[in-house]
């Protein structure tokens, strides 16, 4: 979509925005990186298209305090993350010019991205203008995103244990999942903080692997938009989204449907309650043991 590029260039040139966050193409077909463009000349290498899979919302944090406005190109699902960051007062809406970019489903060298198979639709939650086309408005063929979680739930506890040990034991604690996550925006993560008492730098034991991933999932529970970046970036191919989706599934079932990043309600399922909520024992009473 060349029009995104020309529109961004226009806004950069007329001074509406000071900089643009978009994508730049490298050597190979699928070698696209998020990139910063500050001059019209730099904009020559701006691209948008099939390999623009990364969620640029998180980069906005870097420019929240920067001088002037920042233009950011967001796909429909990325706007959920951006909006969630607005809910959490982590971003100043006034500092950003959002081009909502139409999306036909993104891919990498191995084909359609896993996260796009669970596309949450083509609506933009927050934007200044939308640039899309007929094709990108068509809904994607998706499957029920909770299938993976449901399959695990059907297993026995022992099978689940073996499954997750197999997956999590590969974790090298590179922190890619955390660092890419638009919900993980702590200025100091508890796992990096020597004063927190739970700081850890390497998954030395099974426990440390479990601890990191359980707590990370818990900390983003209710705030995670299910953008799928964690699984996409994991160099060890751990299906981390299955942890976050478990919380999403549980919260939807127990506390009513909630999609983080939608609307203006700032409360999440974990910062609200009803007097009739299920007791924690519900967890132990349902399904397979």
């Amino acid at each position, binding site marked *: 979509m060349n029009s995104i590029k020309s529109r961004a260039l226009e806004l950069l040139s007329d001074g509406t925005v000071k900089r643009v966050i978009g994508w730049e193409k*490298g050597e190979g077909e699928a070698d696209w990186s998020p990139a*910063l463009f500050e001059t019209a000349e730099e904009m020559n290498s701006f691209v948008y298209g099939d390999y623009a899979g990364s969620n640029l919302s998180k*980069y906005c944090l870097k420019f929240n305090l920067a001088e002037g406005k920042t233009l950011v190109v967001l796909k429909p699902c990325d706007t959920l993350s951006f909006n969630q960051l607005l809910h959490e007062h982590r971003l100043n809406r006034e500092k950003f010019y959002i081009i909502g970019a139409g999306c036909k489903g993104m891919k990498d060298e191995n084909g359609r991205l896993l996260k796009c198979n669970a596309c949450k639709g083509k609506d933009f939650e927050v934007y200044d203008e939308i640039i899309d086309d007929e094709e990108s408005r068509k809904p994607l063929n998706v499957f029920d995103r909770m299938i993976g979680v449901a399959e695990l739930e059907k297993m026995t506890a022992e099978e689940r244990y073996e499954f997750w040990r197999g997956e999590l034991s590969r974790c090298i604690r590179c*922190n890619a999942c955390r*660092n890419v996550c638009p919900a993980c925006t702590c200025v100091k993560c508890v796992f990096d903080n020597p004063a927190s008492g739970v700081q850890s*730098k390497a998954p030395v034991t099974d426990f440390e692997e479990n601890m990191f991933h359980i707590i990370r999932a818990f900390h983003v529970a209710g705030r995670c938009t299910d953008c799928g970046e964690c699984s*996409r970036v994991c160099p060890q191919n751990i299906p981390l989204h299955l942890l976050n989706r478990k919380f999403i599934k549980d919260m939807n079932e127990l506390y009513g449907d909630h999609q983080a990043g939608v609307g203006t309600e700032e409360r999440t399922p974990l910062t609200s309650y009803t007097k009739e909520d299920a007791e924690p024992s519900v967890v132990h009473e349902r399904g397979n043991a």
Partner: protein
Amino acid sequence: MRQFPESKVLDIIQSIPCPVYAPVEDGSMVVYGRYEDGMTLRLDKIATDKTPKDILFPQWENLMHFRMEGKTIELTEEKRMEEDYVIFGVRGCDIQAFKVLDKVFLSDPIDTYYAARREHGTIVALACTSMKDTCFCKNFSVDPSQPDADVVLWLIGDDYYCEAYTDKGRALMEKWDTREAEDGPVEWIKGEIDKKYESLPFAHLNLTGFDGEHLMEKFNSPKWKKLSMACLGCGSCTFACPTCQCYDIRDYDSGNGIQRYRCWDSCMYSDFTLMAHGTNRPTQLERYRQRFMHKLVYFPSNNDGMYSCVGCGRCIEKCPMNLNIVKVIKALGEDAK
């Protein structure tokens, strides 16, 4: 020169009387693991997902243990490696990486944990008869056709050709069931490897100017800002890198005693070498610059021109945002001017 059929490689490995570490499958990945019956050997894998660095310098290892008994302290040092072992099927780039690690850990003061492992290991290398587009090892004085190891293997047709170059290597190979071979095929395949390398996209990068002389020029380049923007500050590249050798030493207090261990650290992390006053690399730009300046400028200027990149291409594959050292070399190198 000796040779044995490719189909016999498992027999050879199983005949080795000490632990053998080799590229094996672990789920969807290939890592250097201790070979056991039933594992899937993947000698064909170029740039394994985890590097053989893990064997010499594991992601974490215990150094010592303290124990308080009442108000007295008892200290036990962790044992150094005492058992011989073999690393099998290592590629030239990863062997070059061992040399980089040696520069760090075997120069004074010697790291005795590392030294013991290095001493007890025998390295069986495998020449790269196939390559990936991400390979660029020759830029860093690596010869993929003739790795510098105790034993080198070449896969030619259905046979492995092998040659021992050290006493350790000869002692190991002595027990293998091999037969005499001609030198000719190996010489031929070396030529083929060279030719194949020439066709790679990053075969020849211009490294002119990546030296101590141009340190400040590189350091002050305005390009770092754009280069580093997309960096998430995760440690994927450092953990996938065969030469990254930074570590942290930490204590784990179990209540029954304190385990002092070291684990990999990453210059990409915001809490890397954190000091009382904070950090001297406050943003990702400085951290990103540090990693590449170290590999391409600081390390060679302190180590007779030896780069601490070996061109294995893993960072190209692993970076979630498609950043890598090649982009840095191209952006900051002479060609970009």
